[in-house]
């Protein structure tokens, strides 16, 4: 007899299992995926060398590169995942099964975190070994907690975005594509955003990685934060539950709406 708890836990674990196996079954792919982002990372570092920036900016690039890996994974493997499932014909099965859709999304997110973490380790290792970035060891436990909090928030945001794909096809795909550059710009992936006007800082703070990076830049490199650190941590801590509730509400609403519109499993929109 399948219990209610089973319908929540097992789909999440199964979906995470599929994602982890699929992402790591070909060793060559793991290596390629881990080292490809290093090319861009190195280009950003050399840009700062060209500009004569202080060494801490190289650290900013490494932290930003690590966070960008998670953000890309959130956009393309959690936010947009229901689009791929629709195109591949899996979405019908998901919706026919008694499994919780939220637990499927949680499984996708968890698998995504595991896969991306492997790649992020390479990014940070290259930052330390090749570009000589120094991370103060005494700050690492706290910084890791903040990083984890920001990553959880990002994945919760991805789960909230995913419901858009139940109704839309290419439009949602284009919106995901559109979110990449503006979000990278306003969230200050590679630079502090203190010189942004207040309204833009406030807008940027809605993206979890902005505050996460801001705190970590202060911890490791002494860079000033846009708000006081306890407030920034508090905002990050509140974001996850709010976004998860929002994701659940959005998913339920969009499921009903897209069924009514007859677009739930409509491909190639």
């Amino acid at each position, binding site marked *: 007899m399948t219990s209610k708890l089973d319908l929540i836990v097992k789909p999440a674990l199964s979906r995470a299992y599929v994602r982890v196996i699929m992402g790591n079954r070909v060793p060559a792919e793991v290596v390629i995926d881990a080292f490809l982002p290093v090319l861009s990372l190195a280009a950003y570092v050399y840009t700062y060398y060209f500009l004569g920036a202080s060494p801490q900016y190289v650290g900013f690039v490494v932290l930003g590169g690590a966070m960008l890996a998670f953000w890309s994974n959130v956009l393309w493997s959690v936010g947009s995942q229901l689009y791929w499932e629709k195109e591949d014909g899996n979405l019908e099965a998901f919706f026919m099964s008694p499994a919780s859709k939220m637990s499927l999304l949680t499984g996708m997110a968890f698998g995504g975190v595991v896969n991306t973490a492997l790649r992020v380790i390479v990014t940070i290792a290259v930052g330390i070994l090749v570009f000589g970035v120094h991370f103060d060891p005494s700050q690492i436990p706290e910084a890791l907690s903040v990083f984890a909090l920001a990553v959880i928030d990002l994945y919760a945001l991805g789960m909230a975005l995913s419901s858009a794909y139940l109704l839309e096809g290419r439009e949602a795909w284009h919106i995901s594509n559109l979110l990449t550059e503006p979000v990278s710009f306003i969230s200050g992936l590679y*630079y502090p955003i203190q010189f942004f006007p207040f309204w833009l800082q406030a807008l940027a703070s809605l993206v979890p990685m902005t505050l996460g990076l801001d705190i970590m830049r202060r911890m490791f490199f002494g860079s000033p934060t846009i708000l006081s650190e306890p407030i920034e941590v508090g905002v990050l801590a509140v974001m996850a539950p709010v976004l998860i509730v929002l994701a659940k509400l959005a998913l339920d609403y969009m499921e009903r709406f897209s069924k009514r519109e007859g677009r739930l499993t409509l491909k190639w929109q």
Partner: protein
Amino acid sequence: MAVDRWQGFKAAVWLGWQIDSNWTDIFLFSLYTVIKPVFGMLTFVFMYFAATAGGPIDPEKLAYILVGSSLFNYAANAIWNSFFAVHDDKEHYYTIRYLNIAPTDFTLYYLGRITPSVLFSSTVSLIINLAIGIVFLGLKVEPTLQTMMYLLISIPTVALGFIGYALMVVGVSFFTTRYLFSLVDGLTGISFLLGGVLYPPSVLPPAIKWLSQIVPWYYWIEMLRSPIVGGGSGLTPGFVLIGAVFSAVFLGLGVWFFGWSINKAKKDGTLDMVMSW
């Protein structure tokens, strides 16, 4: 027959435009076309502002980054859209088998298919990026007879080189889906790192600096950037000649490889194989 080939090209242009734009209304499409590249360029410009905060602005460095990033974005978008056209036809719309039996030429079809995105999306966004640079960021573009002549020579030369490059990438996409994205990302990443996009190759460590000399993007981007900013190695005949040689080689290789790829894919049965990456 020539008339049929032209009709096939026109149909491909129309189809490319529809696929690019009919997912929304023209206003949102235009906004989307502009926002992405503008913010891409602004990220690099703000890296400049962050790094030099409080210090005097070096207009040459700012121009180098602004124009380099805009040109790179243009080329990278064009390459991405080229292989994605095959990916779409093969993996999403399952139309590649019908193209195979249609009385049209594959090369012309794909050139037509990517023309709207290159001409409209990429070109418009490049112009807007440069306009933002001129109006808001102090980019100085002061054309002279010499720079205009170099630009007039460089644009078609570089365009032909990129067409060859794109045809090679598109050719690969007839065989594989799984590794295609990594391949394109890898080639683009190497070009971004070594191609003198945001900094001159002299910034790179000596061990890898020399590699820039064999990366075609280095010549192609510099050939376009130098006439725009009014200085740089792209305004010397020797440099342009090397860029032109790269273009000729890549165009020749691209046309040959594209045709060879289609024949091989037909023979191996991979032309319309859906791999559900």
